[in-house]
Each structure stands twice: as C-alpha cells, then as structure tokens.
C-alpha cells in the first residue's frame, strides 16, 4: 500500500492503524455473522411473543374472579376452573412433601459425603437418565408401581408420587449446586471446633445454601404444575366437580383440564380454552420468574 497525506499519516512513514482491504472484509463478515446469529435468536424468541400475545388477547377477557373461583358447568362448556386449580395445588403440595426430603438428602450425600467412586458415577448417571425419561414412561411407572403394586388406586397420592419421581433430578441438581457453592473454609472452621459432620451440615452448610435450594424447589413446583402425561392415568380425572378431601381421592388438575377441554369435549367456547391456557401458563411462568429473580437477587447479595 502507498501512504499519502490524505490517509492522515506522515509522508514517508508507514501508517500503523489504517484498515487494509482484508481488515475491511473481515469486519464486514463479522458484522454479517453478528446480524445472522442475532436474527436466529430473534426468530426463536419472536413466535413465543406472538403466541403469548394471542393467548393474552383471546384468553384475557375470560379471566375473572368468577372464572377462577367457580365450578365448571354444562358439561364443562361453561363455568370456571376452581376444582382444577385446587387439584393442582394438592398435587404440587403432596409431590413436594415426597420429593424435597429425598432430593435434598441425595444432594447432601453427593456434595458432602460421596467419594469419587463407581457408585457416585452411577448416581450421577441415574440422575441424568431420570431427567431424560419421557414423561409418558413415568406415567407407566406410576401405574405399575403406585396405582397397581402399592394399591393406591388412581388417586392424588399415586399421581403426586409419580410427579415426585419425575421432578426429583431437578431438586437434586439445584440443591447440590447450592451446597457446593458454600466455601470449604466454612466447613473446616466448624469441624475444627469439634463438630460432627451432621452438625456442620445442619448449622453451617444448609443455612448458607437454603435460598439456593428454595430456588430449585420453586422450579420443580412450576414443572409439577404443568405436567399432564404422568397424571393422566394415575390420579387426574376428566371431570370431578368436587374438591378433594384426602390424598386417596381423584382430582381435576389444570394441565389435564386444558387437555380435556381442548380435545375431548365438543362445544367448549374458545374463550374458555384460551382462558384456561392463559391461567396455566401465567402460573408456571410467574413461578419461574420468581425463581430467576430470586437467584439473581441472591447472587448480588452473596458475600463470598
């Protein structure tokens, strides 16, 4: 290249920072790729925006105090979703009672006790696979193990336990991560005071990890509330217009209700379907948003 005064350099000396044609081409390519990948991200995100808007526009008018708190009527073609909402709360509560203690125990074992041996590798592999088993296979397991073998019949208990097995990996992984985030020095300080391992976990490790565990629990609640396949044959009823009174009752559930009114019942007004879908998705996304907000809040608050 020749350098002249027009390029802003000193005549006779090479110009150090002028763009060569190769530079220009590279930067144009760089810009192009940035735009391309940005567009791909946008294409992934935009349909969901559109879908949410449609749900909001078509389902929004249906949502009222009466819709949320009244029973379905006229063969589910009118009325509200109250029993389904209550049923989902039952399922979530019972499955949490089952999955949180087991999941937290598993995480404590993996984070605080487990040596690096074949058993630990086996456990990790089992967690990955448990998370990857199709939900309908979990349903088959629930039917075989809880409905038939344990003799719970189709009940809230059988459905909740099926859901608990399904969300177990979620609880384990979230809890393990927050336990491992507690600095080793905290434990060492406690051990040096003569505390047993369990005393250390109970008084030092768990209190420091509790908020992270809570984040994982909220996530598993949202997952539990949205699942349909595992409860279809284990405890969720097509139509059961009563509030459950014990864990051995069948129940309606939000996700199942949406499936039923959008496929199995003719003549359900669109407004009702969109309203139910909107309620369910709002419930789930609110829970997730809470969990995400909580996580970033904690990250900001962390002192170590």
């Amino acid at each position, binding site marked *: 290249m020749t350098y002249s005064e027009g390029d802003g350099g000193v005549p006779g000396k090479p110009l150090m920072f002028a763009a060569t044609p190769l530079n220009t081409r590279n930067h144009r390519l760089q810009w192009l790729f940035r735009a391309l990948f940005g567009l791909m*991200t946008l294409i*992934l*995100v935009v349909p*969901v925006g559109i879908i949410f808007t449609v749900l909001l526009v078509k389902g929004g008018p249906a949502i009222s105090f009466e819709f949320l708190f009244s029973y379905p009527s006229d063969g589910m073609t009118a009325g509200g979703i109250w029993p389904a909402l209550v049923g989902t709360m039952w399922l979530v509560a019972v499955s949490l009672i089952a999955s949180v203690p087991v999941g937290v125990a598993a995480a404590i074992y993996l984070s605080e006790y487990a040596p690096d041996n074949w058993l630990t590798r086996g456990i990790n592999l089992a967690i990955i696979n448990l998370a990857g*088993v*199709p939900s309908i296979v979990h349903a088959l397991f629930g039917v075989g193990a809880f409905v038939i073998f344990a003799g719970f019949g189709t009940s809230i208990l059988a459905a909740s336990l099926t859901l608990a097995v399904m969300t177990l990996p979620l609880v384990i992984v979230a809890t393990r991560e927050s336990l491992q985030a507690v600095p080793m020095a905290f434990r060492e300080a406690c051990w040096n005071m003569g505390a047993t391992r369990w005393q250390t976990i109970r008084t030092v490790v768990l209190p420091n990890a509790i908020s992270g565990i809570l984040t994982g629990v909220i996530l598993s609640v949202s997952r539990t509330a949205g699942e349909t396949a595992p409860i279809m044959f284990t405890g969720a009823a097509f139509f059961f217009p009563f509030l459950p009174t014990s864990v051995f009752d069948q129940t309606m559930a939000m996700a199942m209700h949406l499936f039923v009114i959008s496929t199995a019942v003719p003549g359900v007004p669109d407004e009702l379907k969109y309203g139910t879908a909107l309620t369910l998705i709002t419930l789930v996304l609110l829970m997730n948003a809470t969990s995400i907000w909580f996580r970033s809040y904690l990250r900001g608050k962390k002192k170590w």
Partner: protein
Amino acid sequence: MLAKRVKPSAPMDLDHRGRDWYVDKAVTFLVFVGGISAIIFIIGIFVFITKEGVGFIAGPLNVWEFFGSLTWRPTSAQNPRYGVLGLIAGTASVTGLAMVVSVPFSLGAAIFIGEFATGRLRESLKVLVELLAAIPSVVWGFIGLSIMNPLIIDMFDVPVGIGVLNSGIILGLMAAPIMTTIAEDALKAVPDAYREAAEAMGATKWQVIFRVVLPAGRNGLVAAVLLGVGRGFGETMAVLMASGNAIQIPTSPFDSVRALTATIAAELGDAPVGSDHYRALFTLGILLFVVTFIINLTADLVVKRARRT
C-alpha cells in the same frame, strides 16, 4: 467429593460415643439412602414397566411383525395386530422435522448469546430462553391445535392443519431452548485463554468463533443436539394434540401421523389392566425407555470425552 479433600479430625476421646455421635451415624445412613434413590428409581422404572409388559414380550410378541408391520390394531377381538412401524415412522418424522427446524436456530442463538451478546442483552436473552423452556407441553399442544392449525390451513391451503408440519414446528420450538442452553454452556466451557490467544494473533470475533470456539466446543454441541433429539423423541402431550394421530408412514408434511408416546397416552385409558393391549403399551414404554437411555448415555459420554481432552 468435597469430603475426600478434607476430613474432619477424629474426636480425641475415641470411646466417647455420645448422642451427637449416634445422630451423626443415623444421618449418614439416611443421607446415603437418599443418595442412591436416583439409582433405585431408575431401576424401579425399568422393573415396573417390564413387569407389566413382560407378559406381552413372552406371549403374543412376534418381533418381525412388531417392527415390520404397519398394522396396529390392538383392540380387534378376533385378530389383534401389533405392528409399530407406523408409530416409529411417526415419531421419526416429527422428531426429524423438529430437529431440522430447531438445530440451526438453537446453535445460532447459543453462539449469539454466548459470544456476541454482552451485558444486559445477554442476561435478558438467557432469562427469555429459560422461560421458553418452562412452558408446559400441554400448552404447546394447545397452541398447535388452536393457533398453528388455522395458520397452516390458511398459508398452505390444505384441509387439515394438524400433522407432521404442525407438531414438528411445535416440537422444534419446545426443544430449542434446551438445546440453546446446553450449547451455550458448552461454548462457555471453552477456556477464555483459547479466545485470547486467537485474538492476540489478530483474529476477528467471527474468526475466533469459527476457527477456535466451535471446534473446541464441538462435543458439547453434539451432546446438546442429542439431548434435543431425546426431548423430541419422548415428548407426549404436544405430539398427541398436534400430530393428528393417524397411523401411517407420512408422504407429505401435511400428513397426519401417530407417535409412540402419543399411542400410549391415547390408548392406556381404554386398555383393561392385564390385557394383551395393555401389556403391548407397556412394551412400547420399554422401547421408549431403552432408546432414551441410550441417547442420554451417549450424550453423557460425548461430554465426558470432551472434558478429558
């Protein structure tokens, strides 16, 4: 794992086994039982679905007919037929289309979020992807049924909008956030020193990405796609609602198909407990379990190997 590095010092008085000592032993045992629960459940799942399905495998199962015939007629009283070829074709076509739709976009989005986007944009995109992954499958099915269906009818002028195309797109949208998250993790796992070395040689950002980051993170990306396939393969409700449920090998994207998962979901309620039909459905469950197990295992091995090198 942490325990191996530092062990608590042994108590000075070895004979003093007070309440705390016993509590500690009891908790150690309980926590161990919790620890192996995942193994217990994964074995339990296999045992219980095999227990219900074994009567079919030992009895009426004819392997050639099972994998080679299109006729799935389990409810026929005189001549029940159990051919799952059509169901496999259904699952394969829907999952295949979903991957065609979602793999390029997920990987593109992962590159954008992981390498190009910074600061607030990056954080909000990550949150958005996470929320996307949280939408329940029954809601996706509903979207396929009531939003995509009329859209496809209008756009392509076909009589029915549910089928391979509809469920493939829905499944693609469902699998994309998971693949994006895992792929982005894989890119993040590439050491920054690699990027810095390339940048120091004068490489531009896209050169760094194509020549350094992508080759280094290749195994993680493969694992991401595998897990996406696993997700699509095992998805039930969305496919049940958006695929039309006719058993056939599809010849056009608008054909209706029936997936393996959807078959179980649609028929288990009507199959009397202990009947051949009921057992055949559990056999499909065994098939699903084994295939997803293999997919997850492969993905895990691929990631492990990436970490070792």
